[in-house]
């Protein structure tokens, strides 16, 4: 199915969870994720299943400065 990730339309498997999505995209398990502009908590990553056309933002940062 098609979803938007960081403003790009991308094909992903149906019913993919956020954890699986991060693995699929080769990103850190602990990235910051927003679905339709609402931030998810890390503990929801294993259970939240993406739906068609959802708007996903992923930020992958750590540290200070």
């Amino acid at each position, binding site marked *: 199915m098609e979803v938007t990730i960081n403003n790009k339309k991308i094909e992903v498997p149906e019913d993919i969870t956020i954890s699986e999505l991060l693995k699929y995209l080769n*990103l850190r398990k*602990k990235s910051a994720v927003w679905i339709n502009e609402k931030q998810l908590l890390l503990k929801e990553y294993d259970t939240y299943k993406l739906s068609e056309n959802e708007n996903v*933002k992923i930020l992958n940062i*750590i*540290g*200070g400065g």
Partner: protein
Amino acid sequence: MLGYQNKMLRIDLSNKTYSTEPLNMDWAEKYIGGKGLAIKYLYEELKPGTDPFSEHNKLLLMTGPFTGTPVPCSGKLAIASKSPATGTILDCSIGGHSALKIKYAGYDAVMFEGKLDKPGYILIEDDKIEFKEASDLWGKGSHETETILSAEYGKEASILSIGPAGENLVTMSCINSDYYRQAGRGGIGAVMGSKNVKAIVIIGTGGVKVNDIENTTKRLSEILREDTTSEENMFIYEDGTTAFLEACNDGGILPKRNFSDTTDENWTKYNGEVLLQYRKGKRGCGSCGLGCGNFIKIGDAVCEGPEYESIAVAGPNAGIEDPQAIVKANQVADDVGLDTISAGDVIIYAMEMTEKGIYDFGIRFGDKEKYIEYLKLMAKKEGIGADLALGVKKLSEKYGGEDFAMHVKGLEYPQYEPRGSWGMSLAYAVSDRGACHMRAYAPNDEVFEASIPPYTAEGKGKMVVDLAVYNAVKFSLILCDFWPLGMDRMAELMTLITGKEFTEDDMNEVAMRVIHIARAFNQREGFTRKDDTMPKRLVNEALKSGPAAGQKIPQEAFEKMLDDYYAVLGWNNDGIVPDEILTSL
């Protein structure tokens, strides 16, 4: 242990003499180097009650066993003293190449004692130490000073310098290196200024011996590829700290107008995408495996940077949206030798005071020209600068607005809004040098990783201890913040370089010692729970915008976080380190 030079250089500025002595290796085993070992030395050598501007205060430059080796991201130098801004222990971490040059000159550490009778600079060239005149440099900006000294001593010389702010003992002044790197906070530059030291020039032509050097070099090249430069760490090379702008804005912790709200809908005017269009090049520190530095030029505004803090404080927190003005503010602060965070926080407090009609400092939110003018006046303590140079704590005691004077113990607030990340209010409150984001970096857990819910006091005591442990040992090794290596990797590197076996448990023990001894130093100066504070703004005013809209932190929640933090560390409920721990340090 290999990696160390086993030597400290002690410089007596009052008598213009110097000596070398073995590094205390018993202490090095317990505290390693950098932050931890520097605090241990100062804990043992400074008497409680020492005036930070007197000749009895000391300025300590401390490397670590990795410094000067190809351990990635090992190029930082710890610079420590007693803070003129807060009266607490103060350790800063400066990038560039000076840490390596000190090591190659043959020293693990350089201790400055006493004070010069008139302005001078110190030349350290391997085993040659000279006291030079600096009356023609005194008064010049850090950038011009570096240019002059660099022309005389060559590119291989590292130059640490202060600007007029340090000379004038402004308690927000910094020490500069490589033009655009700083030991920024707590008035470290003013300590150097109080000793009449304008600059320290370091040339080092020697080397660092480590255990099994050929195999170690092979292993380090593997670690560089597999760990340091892995895909998930590369954002810091690609975007630098501008990457934090988006995360903080979306996470609801980017402050606006002196921390009166968060979330700037105009952030796309000055964000990473905009700033990086003007990037002319990249630079890192010595031994860096990543390279966070962005060299940016917009018109006549030139800076390696600005970093997240400097963008936020001179941007949304000041009501300014012009990227050129933000870069210029950073350039000017660097040159006159002011900490961008503290100096910025004073200016934005002054803006709010003027807007509210409590006291007219002559500047309002959005006034980008006056922002830059005020930086210059503060550095010289001239005109309105004489008042502003007092810092937010003393200024608010004099003129009011204490509820929104954003500081802890006299060190001004970094640019992460705690109402959107409650654990940060605790981290700021208990940090060993006043409000600092680099002791326990709560936004990682509460916002970027969202592993712990942000708007609760639950579990935050333990969270802040865990974060503080990680940074305490990391900054004692001393490694850069931007390589998020695990503590098992830290232990592997210690074993690899020194030839002595270190385990992850050892790393934890070092961390705990460092946290305890920093607290012990402050406790001896009279600091207790009453000084671990949160500005009233966070209690009384709810945020209006962004994901954390509606959030404020009840005082009881803050007190609970403090209770939990002390309990996890084994301190009493007044935040006092007990004797059993003190005697083990």
